């Protein structure tokens, strides 16, 4: 299945903003960050379709995964 992945802030460096990754059925965000070589401590916020997601949530083919490093403001 193809999963749309969106990266933000410093995670874009050397990786790009948005990509489609080919994953096997049952794979999870954990597999995405491994493929993209993102250290787990750099994953501060993980959204699946705009809702709070977990590294071990099983993905389905229509999912959009957004990954943010630690960010804040106001």
């Amino acid at each position, binding site marked *: 299945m193809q999963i749309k992945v969106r990266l933000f*802030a410093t995670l*874009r460096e050397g990786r790009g*903003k948005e990509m489609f990754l080919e994953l096997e059925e049952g794979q999870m965000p954990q597999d995405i960050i491994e493929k993209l070589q993102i250290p787990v401590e750099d994953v501060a*916020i993980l959204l699946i379709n*705009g809702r709070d997601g977990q590294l071990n949530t099983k993905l389905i083919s229509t999912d959009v995964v957004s990954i*943010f490093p*630690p*960010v*804040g403001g*106001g």
Partner: protein
Amino acid sequence: MFGYQGKILRIDLSTGTTKIEALDEALAKKYIGGRGLGTKIYADEVSPEIDALSAENKILFVTGPLTGTKTPTGGRYMVVTKSPLTGTIASSNSGGYWGPELKFAGYDLIIAEGKADKPVYIMIEDDKIEIRDASHLWGKVVSETTKILEGETPEKSRVLTIGPAGEKLSKMASVMNDLSRAAGRSGVGAVMGSKNLKAIVVRGTGTVPVASEEALKQVVKECTIKIKENGVTGQGLPAYGTAVLVNIINENGVFPTNNFQTSQFSKAEETSGELLAEKYLVKKDPCYRCPIACGRYCKVDDIEGGGPEYETIWAFGGDCGVSDMGSVIKANYWCNEMGLDTISTGATIAAAMELYQKGYIKDEDLNGLSLEFGNADAVVAWTKLIGMREGFGDRMADGSYRLTDSYGVPELSMSVKKQELPAYDPRGIQGQGLQYATSNRGGCHVRGYLISPEILGLPEKLDRFSLEGKAGWVKIFQDLTAFIDASGLCLFTSFAMGGGDYASMINAVIGTDWTAEDILMAGERIWNIERLYNLEAGIDPSQDTLPSRLLKDPIVAGPSEGNVARLSELLPEYYSLRGWGSDGIPTQERKTLLGV
């Protein structure tokens, strides 16, 4: 006395006289400084019933005990007065370098009262105080005023001023210092304007006495390491400033668009923090002793200056349907020049755009200028017209509530207590909705930033749609924030620091032995005196609410689709946790406990 200079500078603009008064140390320690001490002194001196723009009002410029010390971010001050926008107590906070300079000159706070018969500015050089003619400055924008004043005052002086918006009594006028730092909200600039007070220039050569230099050195070292090692204050904010929030808030589907008609902006990426850093950022623009340096300095075409912040990008961007970052930077620039609050100005243009969309405002009212959502050039043009009160800009200059109310549809103003809401749709962030509704200065995110736990996961991640525990989180955030605002530090330290850290810093500076609990208690005391002032000023608890759109109309699409703000389910628990009656009024028992 440590941490405080022990002196209040009182200036009577009606008689042109100045007086130095002693600061009561016990009162100062009870209410800390800034927002707390300022509110206490203000409320004791001024009747809550006065008109905010009358000579009876007073305006206070108040530092905290940590202002001008070696503490990280210890450079903030507060403008405290009655708000002409909301009728509530107004406390508008600003950074830069002006606050520490006032402290170095030897004063904890200034009380300006009465009304000058012609434009004046105040020159403070240590113990020398003069009220000078400002006729040559009246009508001038902030950068020009600052330049002229720098030329006619001692070297290294710091300038606080209003722009044309404050002179023309816009209820969205800010007080500006160091060119682009703003005590932005609640119309405090109009109070200066109503007194014919154009500027306050300060030069100070003293230092702030500290109880234990050794303890301070140690705690500053520890806290600076915490700030540097924290992902938000050590990496995210330094690299991208607050603008980095555009994408994350939009991805969550809580980025209000077209005056909160929708909650996700399809072109958010074009106004993102990442794009700002890539295309427009010239340099960082840090405040006094700040290891974070979130401030930006940007350039587009022939315009350059401080900002824009996240809230500003949202107000002129998504909220107006605008996706051109260059225009957002220009609108921000003109707000700084005119002395206008960027949130209220952008949100008022957005409300006007909805009035136009729905047919209330007609083309013939607009002198050929567009009020269509998405028109980037128009947003810049309207900002200038609002600042000068020209054409239809005059109608918009008193904020979205008064504008929409004049057409009989105040519900189109996305405001609380007449102050425009900032850049987070509370329908998808339930705790933030409760905070907006109960904020003591109306629609505001910096009275309690629930975005931190509900979106950013700091200090822990909460389910943003859930109500569970939210009333308690709101109370703690509001109380801790009130303390930080009183101390002279920047709120952004709280991403990395907790109550214990603040206690250690204040103890080293003023010589107390407070704990984290004492810090929260001091914050709660401040929260309650603000509440009591507002009640006496006629702001009754029925105003602890949100615009009906946010309570009744579910978000139409995106990740937060189908949700409304469930305020009525949270409010009773919040009142109860505050120790207030079910009517929202502080009980005698709680007042006694807090000693207010």
